[in-house]
């Protein structure tokens, strides 16, 4: 990417360099959020691809009154492009669902074995929080269970959910790291 083109892109975000930097980071994070929501495997790369395309089109003379919206439009197109490719390659998808109903499914079994040491790396309180929060409770009883748990921990249910999600994200990162080294 040409540095001058990129500088022009930043200037469109804001004439103030510092503010442009902040808006760029914010835009990048939103794009990552969008691509994650759409189930794209590499949301960071897809976000970078979006910004690259926007920079090039602006350099080529595209009229862009709202850079964020423009990037978001490109991001949507990238998702469409990728989903077209996926539809062609998606023959393994039904096999995945069949496997999932079998508790010894290969992928789940592999993750399960890597997950155990990751789980043990969490401290005692974190482990107990996951065990308690994710305990199999159905329907309305679960809502009450979470409310009581949040009350015990002197926090809101929303904060509790965020905390659990962060723990689960940490486990996912640990499993991904270990998967790469196994």
């Amino acid at each position, binding site marked *: 990417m040409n540095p001058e083109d990129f500088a022009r892109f930043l200037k469109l975000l804001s004439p103030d360099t510092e503010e442009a930097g902040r808006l760029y980071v914010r835009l990048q994070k939103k794009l990552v959020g969008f691509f994650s929501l759409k189930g794209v495997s590499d949301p960071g790369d897809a976000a970078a691809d979006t910004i690259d395309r926007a920079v090039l089109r602006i350099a080529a003379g595209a009229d862009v009154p709202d850079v964020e919206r423009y990037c*978001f439009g490109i991001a949507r197109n990238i998702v469409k492009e990728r989903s077209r490719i996926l539809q062609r390659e998606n023959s393994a998808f039904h096999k995945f669902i069949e496997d999932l109903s079998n508790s010894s499914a290969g992928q789940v079994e592999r*993750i399960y074995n890597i997950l155990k040491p990751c789980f043990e790396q969490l401290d005692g*309180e974190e482990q107990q929080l996951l065990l308690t929060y994710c305990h199999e409770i159905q329907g309305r009883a679960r809502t009450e269970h979470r409310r009581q748990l949040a009350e015990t921990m002197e926090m809101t249910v929303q904060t509790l959910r965020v905390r659990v999600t962060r723990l689960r994200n940490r486990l996912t990162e640990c*499993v991904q790291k270990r998967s790469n080294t196994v």
Partner: protein
Amino acid sequence: MTDERIIAYLLEELPEDDQERFEDECFVQESWPTQINLVEEDLIDAYLRDELTQERRQRFEQNYLTTQARQERVSMAAALLRHIDECNAASKAAITLSQTEPTWADRFRAFWSSQNRTLQAAAAIAVVVIISGALWLFVFRAPVPRTFATLTLTISNNDRAEGAQAGTVKLLPDVEALKVSLTLPQQSPPAAGYRVELENDDREIKSAEIAGSDAQSVQVIIPARQLARGQYVLKLYATKTDGAEQRINGSYFFIVE
């Protein structure tokens, strides 16, 4: 943005215009809404726990599970829920086992009916306090390690900087804790109890859990997660019968490779 609307979006239940409007609403916010991740996680759990209606289950499989990243997310959740269910089942089995004494209920009822109201109130408060304490311990206590690496150490009067003889141990990923047997010096005085301090390379000190002791040694258990690679020192303190504490001269050294 309600949970229900997020689910409807993820399952592609919204008309196309609404799908796009939902995305626009997310995008115009100052930061990407974290709420979406939370709801998505609950949705995946509900699918795995078989809590979705037949229609939603179908939509989940046909409209949500369409990318590799999402399939991996579901596999990860499946593995975690399996692990959690197994741990919880093990705890439940332990509780059920301890409840197989049938005479306790009878004894309690007999005791209860024989007391006056003031005593009943006091007893009720005591029971609530005890159950709360037990629940707290059950929910927040650290899990008991099941796989150990072991090490036997003898005391050294050298300083770490002088290159004292140190035991070495390698902690494999499946090891949950290190069990160390500290051989007591020949002339160590009789003690009513012991306390052990664990010091790492950065001179950070933590207390180590005593697993047991006899006339020759003191056993301590250190969770593997507290042990990064490096050199460690264990310092032993004896509590005399009069309650006074005395440091046992010397230290125990070991290296985690």
